[in-house]
């Protein structure tokens, strides 16, 4: 279903300031390890929720124009990644250039490791990981202090259930999207994907205690 105009505006506020620094995978809200088959689905998911046509009547012209411009960047990323040849060429191009700051942190490197192929144990599937995170108010350890956290948007992106601690307040929206995907993966029993997405989320928001707690719990199980 389409997002609300408020959700779209929060997303635009989030992505516009560093639009030029985003990787193709970030535009498509995917991990860099995403399978080629996942590319189209990711683009369609964004189209279903945020295609400019959906907001023709709901957004003022200026905001609609912002949305078209940002959506055009998503299309640009999809255009490069949708074929195997295109994706390979993109990865070559990116690795030749200096990698963007956002993907050089260690959790992202960890996430690039191939995911285990063994099916997840049933016990893990039964128990959603992020139920007992440290409270969001706990200050992060000094060493992990993130570079200038963004304020979470007032309206969370869709999906997800009720939590004791609202994940939308405990991490930035980019991380939240990945966190939601981890939840989804856990619901289907795919622990490997869940871990991968939590690691990606930590890369996007290294300061979130909730995420670090979730990762610890998931890898312990």
């Amino acid at each position, binding site marked *: 279903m*389409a997002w609300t105009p408020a959700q779209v505006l929060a997303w635009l506020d989030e992505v516009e300031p560093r639009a030029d620094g985003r990787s193709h995978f970030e535009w498509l809200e995917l991990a860099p390890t995403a399978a080629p088959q996942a590319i*189209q689905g990711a*683009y*369609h998911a964004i*189209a*279903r929720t945020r*295609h*400019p*046509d*959906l907001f*023709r*009547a709901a957004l003022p012209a200026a905001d609609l124009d912002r949305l*078209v*411009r940002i*959506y*055009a*960047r998503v*299309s*640009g990323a*999809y*255009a490069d990644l949708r*074929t195997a040849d295109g994706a390979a060429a993109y990865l070559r191009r990116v690795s030749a250039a200096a990698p963007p700051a956002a993907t050089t942190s260690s959790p992202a490197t960890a996430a690039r490791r191939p995911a285990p192929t063994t099916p997840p144990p049933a016990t893990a599937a039964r128990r959603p990981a992020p139920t007992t995170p440290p409270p969001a108010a706990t200050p992060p350890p000094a060493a992990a202090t993130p570079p200038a956290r963004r304020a979470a948007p007032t309206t969370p992106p869709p999906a997800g259930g009720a939590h004791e601690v609202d994940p939308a307040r405990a991490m930035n929206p980019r991380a939240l999207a990945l966190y939601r995907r981890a939840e989804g993966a856990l619901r289907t029993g795919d622990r490997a994907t869940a871990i991968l997405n939590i690691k990606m989320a930590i890369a996007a928001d290294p300061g979130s205690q909730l995420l670090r707690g979730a990762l610890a719990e998931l890898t312990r199980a």
Partner: protein
Amino acid sequence: MGLAVGIDLGTTNSVVAIATPTGVEFALGPAGERVHPSVVGFQPDGSVVVGLDAKHQRVDFPATTIYSAKRLIGQNVRTPLVQLALTGLPYAVEEGPNQQPLIVIEGRRVTVPEVSGHVLAHLKACAQRQLGQAVTDAVITVPANFTDAQRQATKEAGRLAGLEVMRLLNEPTAAALAYGFGQHKDETVCVFDFGGGTFDVSLLAIKDEVFEVLATDGDFFLGGDDIDRAIAEFLAAEMNRQLRVDPRPDAGLMTRLAIAAEEIKIHLSEATAAEGTVDGLLHRGRSLSLPFRLTRPQLDELIRGYVDRTIELTRNVLTAAHLEVGAITEVVCVGGSTRVPLVRRRLAELFGREPALRINPDEVVAQGAAIQAGSLSGALYRGGGMATRDAVPTAALSPLAHGDVPWAKAAAPARPILLDVTPATLRIATAGGYSEPILDKNLPTPIERTRVFTTAHDQQTRVVIECGRGERKRFAENEPLGTLVLDELPPRRRGEVKIEVTFRVDTDGILHVRARDADTGASCDADLTILGAPTRGAA
């Protein structure tokens, strides 16, 4: 806001439709016709007739009856293909401002958007009469391979008709929407659109109400008119042989033969031979009659080249989308020319299946446009069902005449998502007469892409960026789109100034170009002048 309609503005015929809670309703013309000829007749007293009435006066007033305006809209009149198309027209065309074609009607100059505007105004009037409500907004369909200038000129035509053009929708996408909307089935469809004046073929993936164009290709100057012309040429040769009269220099005679040719073509879609007489051939004060006989195999031979071309383009588009023939789950036929048996046979041979004929090929595009118009205006709801029903000729019976239907309000709005692609590569000229692509063909739109270029000479303070459209490496072999000038660059050594060139194609498929000096941060914006585009207030 008034009602929003969908309009298939065709080369030969146009259709206007509206999505209602019970289905798509077609607006009828004065004689009850669902399909309105895209013909505009200019009368000596200055009035204008449109549609069937105009088509009927075509034989008597060939020089003031304008048909196939779509072939000229937004075209650069100097283009060789346009010059070729002009040779077959009985009305006069000359070059106007910005190299746009102007139609000369008894000394008066009329722009092509004005002519199409008359067609659109007629369609709007038909819809208003039938629905009993003001029509203010429209989705107008265009061939997928329409250029920027053609799209802008079509929008201009809508503006002249007093319509707010919500969206220009590509015809094959509209057809796929009509075919797949509400079906809740994953499909990969081939839309084969062989209309009056243009040919388009597109492949689309339909997944859960998302309609993604995978690839598209086409030919501007290939359509049913060419089939008519091939038959007319056959008749002209017969006339020369039997009656010792060469009709080719006579616009009136050729128009009469072209009309007979269309009738013969339609007859041969059902029968295996057409036999009869073309009457009323006026030559030197005498009315001549031409007996003829044309069999279907003869017709197949006359038009084989055109049909081969459509099949070749269909193979190309499969290659472009990295798809095998077997991946196509349905073939959707659009346009009257898909009724030609040879076309059907070749399609069936290629895909190993008969094409889908669930929706009338003359109406499928307008139906899709109506669904999109309903979606964009928020008037389309789930569960309404999109089966077409016969148009209701009286306003009193139209559900729209009574305002919103209560149950429809409670339903969730239906919002099919259309993901279209760029129809051609958009490129800029580089040193040595070559070119670099900025946006490739078949990329999803809206899309933006920036490439960085640099200066070619020391102390260069000005760069001229020539933009073009086409698939050729040598710039001159592509269609020119216009020129962008970036001035007042800091004088530096060559290669030291970085110029970012950004091409952005918006949701209507219209191109916006920007050049920026990346180093100084001074953003030197410039607009593109598109050749062939209408200029406001021309003529």
